[in-house]
């Protein structure tokens, strides 16, 4: 009898504290900023429909977003971004597949802020490059916030900036990630 009670308790206890395996969102926010100090206006857009999936057991992390989903304040800037820079008709999607290299340091069952290092491959505009970034995972109430800032050299992805606007559009864009992840049931 004692053994049964013990086994049941262990099972319940494990169930109560163990985190879900996968967390995801389909409304992740990715902000793209290519403003230079000389630019008279900000060159930035935001995508609010990015997909992000994190596998807490393996540390695998994936992002997927549609380039046409980036919204800019000025319609002309959005059109130039799509037609001339990222050529979204030819290359509709950007993807990142990588891992959280210090995944074992993250306790997904305990509320807290965990600095993370992410390494993986970014595929954009028909090119794939290795990317490393620092970020943080905030575990709170059974949900995870994933935040990061990292630079992307546009030339690495064959995104060409015309010389006419070379002093307005930065050669290195700043990407900001802000995703609220929920358990995948």
């Amino acid at each position, binding site marked *: 009898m004692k053994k049964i009670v013990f086994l049941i308790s262990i099972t319940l206890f494990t169930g109560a504290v163990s985190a879900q395996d996968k967390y*995801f969102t*389909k409304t992740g926010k990715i902000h793209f900023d290519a403003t230079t100090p000389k630019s008279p206006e900000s060159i930035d857009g935001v995508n609010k429909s990015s997909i992000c*999936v994190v596998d807490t057991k393996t540390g695998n992390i994936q992002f997927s977003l549609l380039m046409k989903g980036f919204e800019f*304040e*000025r319609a002309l800037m959005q059109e130039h971004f799509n037609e001339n820079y990222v050529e979204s008709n030819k290359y509709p999607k950007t993807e990142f597949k990588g891992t959280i290299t210090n995944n074992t340091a993250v306790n997904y069952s305990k509320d807290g802020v965990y600095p993370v290092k992410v390494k993986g491959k970014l595929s954009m505009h028909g090119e794939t490059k290795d990317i490393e970034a620092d970020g943080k995972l905030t575990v709170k109430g059974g949900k995870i916030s994933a935040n990061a800032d990292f630079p992307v050299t546009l030339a690495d992805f064959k995104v060409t900036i015309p010389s006419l606007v070379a002093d307005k559009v930065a050669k290195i864009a700043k990407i900001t990630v802000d995703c609220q992840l929920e358990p995948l049931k």
Partner: protein
Amino acid sequence: MKKKKLIRNVLLVAVVLGIGAAIYGYKEFNRKSESITSKAADFKVKPLDIITAFTDDEKAATLKYGGKIIQVAGLVKKVDKDEQGNFTVVIGDNSSLSSVRCSIDSLFSKDVTALQLNAPAFLKGVCTGFNADEMGLGSDVILNRCVIVKD
């Protein structure tokens, strides 16, 4: 005298054209993305039809629907709201993981409260593309800057 008048008239026309071009240039440069409320839909579809089109031939469907205004009629599966109060209305069939995800134009967020789960709705938005089911989350057609159509 005639020559002077001709030169004067030509200069006048050039100045008027120049001002016209400058005004046009200024307006075009500062043009904001218009709300699509007043714009007619390029296509009116049911969720299954557009999802199937993308599943069967993503390249062809992206060419056909990408950047176009799509009006979708279907059942409201879910309404997501993010930390900034932006709504996404998920339209589709409850028996399928795949949906049409409509990211609502923030100017029309208040209209979302009128929607009911599992009730029919008509939404109109710009198609930004298709997310194929690569991560076990179902496939989605994504519409941006959506408005609810009172059809």
